[in-house]
Structure formats: C-alpha cells, structure tokens
C-alpha cells in the first residue's frame, strides 16, 4: 500500500525552547489504522496538530497524498478530519448545525442525507436538534467525530477519542472505526488505552520524548517481542524455590502455591521441558499449568522504560 501520510525529519521546537518532536519519520499507509502509543507529553498531539496545520513545524517535510501540507494546504486539509483530545464544541448550537458548519468550513456543499447518515451511525440522530450543551460527555465526543467526518475525509485523526468514555460506548466507537476502515478511510489514533490499540490497530507506533521508538505491524510486534509466562500451581506450598531450580529464574507466589517462569517464545530453547523434568526431580507436585502471552501493554511499558533509562 502507498503512503498516504509521509512525515520526514520533522522537528518541532516551541518558543520556550522545548523540543516536542525530534526528527520524526513516519509513513502511514492508505487504508490502515495506525495507533500512536505514548505516555503523557510524548509528542502524540503535537505530531497530529502539526500534520493537521494547527501547529507549524520547525523543520522537515510532511506530505499527504503526495502533496505538501503548506503549499497545497487547501487540498490536503480538505482530505483530513480531526477529532481533538479535548471536547471543544459551541455549547449553544444544535448538533446538526455544528455538523453542517464543519462540512461548509471544509468547502463541501450541503448534503443533509449524508449528515443524517453519519448521525445515525454515531447514534446521534435523535439528538440532531438538541443543543450541544444538553448532551452527555460521551455524546459530545461523538459529535466531535461527526464533525470530523462531515466533509468525507480520507484521513481521520482521532486524538484519544475514548478518553473518559464508558466501556459500552468505547466498543461502539471501535465498531464505528472498523466501519470507516471498510470504507477506505485511513485512521491515525492516539490512545492511552493499550487494549484499544490491540483491538483495532493494524500497526503500532510507539512515541516517547518526541521520538518514534518503534513502528511495526501489531501482530508481528506482539509475536516478535512477546514473552510468554508459564504458571505452575503446586499441590503443596513451598517456602522457597528449590536449589535444583535456581537456574530457571522462577518467581514464587507470596503464598508459596505457584511458580511463574517467563520465557521468550522466539528462542530456540524455551527451557520448558527441562523445567518440568527438574520440578519432578525436586519432588514438587503440580496441580495445574497455565501459559499467558504478554500483552501490548507489557511491551509498551518495557519500551518506554528502556527509553527513559
């Protein structure tokens, strides 16, 4: 797939000297969902704001669909929709008028049927004539999405779209994102919820301290960096790890009833067979054995901690 958004050597330094983006390079493929993961202040919102034209870049180049974001700003911006992190809406206006405003602002002619369809998809249709100030927080967030979609964008930036949203609504939004992907919309998502990235993203980019630490296919990332844990429940509690098993780096549960062994699924020798044999030799009887693959969260925390060191 061709890159629809291309970020090359982008730096952003604020007037106070703070370097929010340090030589960022990122290629976003058309039609994919990419999740930008990073802790607070990592540069996620700055990167999005810079691509969307809200923030100016200090150096570097950003192209969208082959066009420069500065010299071809009209064509580029008409292709992009942005859902900001903060809920920012005109409180006294109705939902439909807010959405109509967005469509017009982005240069599109009126299309009531299309806007009604968006409102239906986002379960906002019955609130179309309600004033924004009367809506709940979750509904306001959906209005932001409706506004971002009002001009039929090909690229959609979602800056923490489900922050402060209940679980049910979060799942609804994931469904909406999946529908948009089917329609061919490229989606760039920043999130704090790693399960969100795990659930809906095709690729993951980890950003910290204004630098992209990693960009990789989500499944490949989990498989490549993933570690597995094997938990062995014991019949009789043990007070310490037997000396014969010292070479395995085992963790003994506080109650002494379980041993946990972490291993790399990609290594040639996982050590499982030897461990199980040695457990028997040490006279420990097993009640149960469970394995667990490390989540994206573990990988993310590991990467960011390593970068901070």
């Amino acid at each position, binding site marked *: 797939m061709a890159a629809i958004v291309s970020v090359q050597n982008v730096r952003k330094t*604020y007037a106070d000297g703070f370097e929010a983006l340090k030589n960022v390079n990122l290629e976003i493929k058309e039609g994919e969902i990419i999740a930008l993961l990073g802790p607070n202040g990592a540069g996620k919102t700055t990167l999005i704001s810079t691509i969307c034209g*809200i923030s*100016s870049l200090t150096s570097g180049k950003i192209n969208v669909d082959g066009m420069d974001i500065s010299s071809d700003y009209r064509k580029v911006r008409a292709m992009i929709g942005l859902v900001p992190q903060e809920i920012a809406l005109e409180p006294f206006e109705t939902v439909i008028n807010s959405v109509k405003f967005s469509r*017009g602002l982005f240069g599109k002619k009126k299309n009531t049927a299309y806007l009604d369809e968006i409102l239906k998809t986002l379960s906002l249709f019955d609130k179309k004539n309600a004033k924004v100030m009367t809506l709940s927080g979750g509904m306001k967030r959906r209005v932001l999405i409706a506004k971002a979609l009002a001009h039929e964008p090909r690229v959609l930036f979602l800056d923490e779209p489900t922050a402060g949203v209940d679980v049910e609504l979060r799942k609804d939004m994931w469904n909406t994102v999946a529908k948009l992907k089917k329609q061919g919309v490229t989606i760039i998502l920043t999130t704090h919820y790693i399960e969100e990235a795990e659930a809906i993203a095709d690729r993951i980019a980890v950003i910290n301290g204004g630098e992209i630490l990693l960009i990789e296919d989500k499944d490949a990332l989990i498989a490549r960096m993933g570690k597995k844990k094997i938990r062995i429940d014991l019949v009789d509690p043990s007070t310490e790890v037997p000396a014969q098993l010292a070479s395995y780096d085992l963790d003994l549960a506080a109650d002494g009833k379980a041993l946990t062994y972490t291993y790399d699924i990609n290594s040639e020798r996982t050590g499982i067979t030897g461990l199980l044999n040695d457990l028997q030799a040490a006279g420990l009887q097993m009640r149960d054995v469970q394995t667990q693959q490390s989540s994206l969260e573990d990988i993310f925390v590991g990467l960011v901690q390593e970068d901070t060191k």
Partner: protein
Amino acid sequence: MNFQAVGAIYTFEMARFFRTLKQSFLSPVLSTTLYFVVFGTAIGSRMEAVDGVEYGAFIVPGLIMLSVMTQSISNASFGIYFPKFIGTIYELLSAPVNFLEIVVGYVGAAATKSLFIGLVILGTAYLFVDLDIQHPIAMVCFLVLTCLSFSLLGFIIGIWAGNFEQLNLVPMLVVTPLVFLGGSFYSITMLPPIWQTVTMFNPVVYLISGFRWAFFGQADVAIGVSLGAISLFTLACLAFIWWIFKTGWRIRS
C-alpha cells in the same frame, strides 16, 4: 475562494445573533430612547440649534456611530475570541481556508449585526425627531464602512485578548472615550481652538464628521478627508490581520 467556508462561518455567526434577537433589538432601542429623552427632550429643548440643526436631530449621527462602533468591536472580538476560549478554533486552523475567507466570514457577520443595530437606532430616532437625510447613499456608505472597519478592529482585539477582561479593556478604555470626545454630541467648532487642534488626532472625529455631513450637509472636516481616513483605517486593520495569519500570532503555536 472557498465560498462554502465563508457562508458556513457567516451563517454560524449570524445564528448566535438570531438566538439573542430580542436582546439585540431591544437593547439599542431602549438606550436610544433614553438618549433622546435626556439629551433630545430634557436638555436639548434648552439648547440652541447647532449649525442650524435642532440639537435632538444633531446628535442622531453621533448616537448611531457610538452604538455601531462599540457593537462592531464587541461582536467581532467576541466572535473570534469565543472559539479560542472554548477551543473550537482548532477546526478553523485545520480547515482549508485562508485569512481572507475567515475575515470575510467573521467580520462580515459582525458588521451585519452592527449595521442592523445602526438601522434600528435610525428608525427609533425617526420617532423622536424630524430627520431629512441629505445624502442617503453617502450615509449608507459611511455606515457600512464604519461597521466594517470597526469589526476588523474588533477581530484584532479578539485575537489579541487572552481573557475576557482584556476583551472588554480596549472598547471600554479606548474606544468609548474616543467616540464621546469625537464630536458625537457636539460640533468641534464649539471647542476652544487648542482643543480643536487636539481633537483632530482622534480618528473617530473624521468618521462622525463624515457621517454627519451625509445627514445634514455640514461637516467639521472635509468629506474627502473623512473618506480617506476611514479607508486608511480599514486598510491598516486588514494589513494587520493578514500579518496575524501569516505569522500565527496568538492563534497558532
């Protein structure tokens, strides 16, 4: 030109005006009525005619200018400051629009609102005094130009303002005194010579003088000078707004 965007901004801003139509309509009617009761009837009846014009009628152009200038500034400054305050400015900054389209939308709506108020005051004035506008086309031109130029100034103030206090500071501390001292309620010739010279540094004098000429055919300043002054002021505001959007001053990080 992104006409759709201009139309969207203009419609959205006018909707704010229509939501508070009663207040927008009643407030100028009431204040004008009070001015006429106090200055026109109570005090005006004891005053001589100014340059042959009955005092009640004489103050009409100044009264319209006073409201139009303050309303233009407050409408335009609030129009652009409010999106900054509530955060919706992000949409404007990420939209495929240039500075001229943003200005035409916001300033056009602010100027329309103050033009409406100016016409309401004029209509109210007819209830109290006999008016015979000598140059109606010039009157409308001056009115529209004043609405536009002061809305441009208001737009700049709205971008500059960092809080609501600053938003009210310039209209309250600068514009209102300039309008009151700009000959709204008197002819400059009524001042001592030294103050006549000082007052010529007040740009509002040229606007009120020109506007009064359109009504009564008499002016403190030559009509060409008045027209030149208001045109210069409009161009200066436009140039400053162009610079704001070019540099991102106070709007783009």
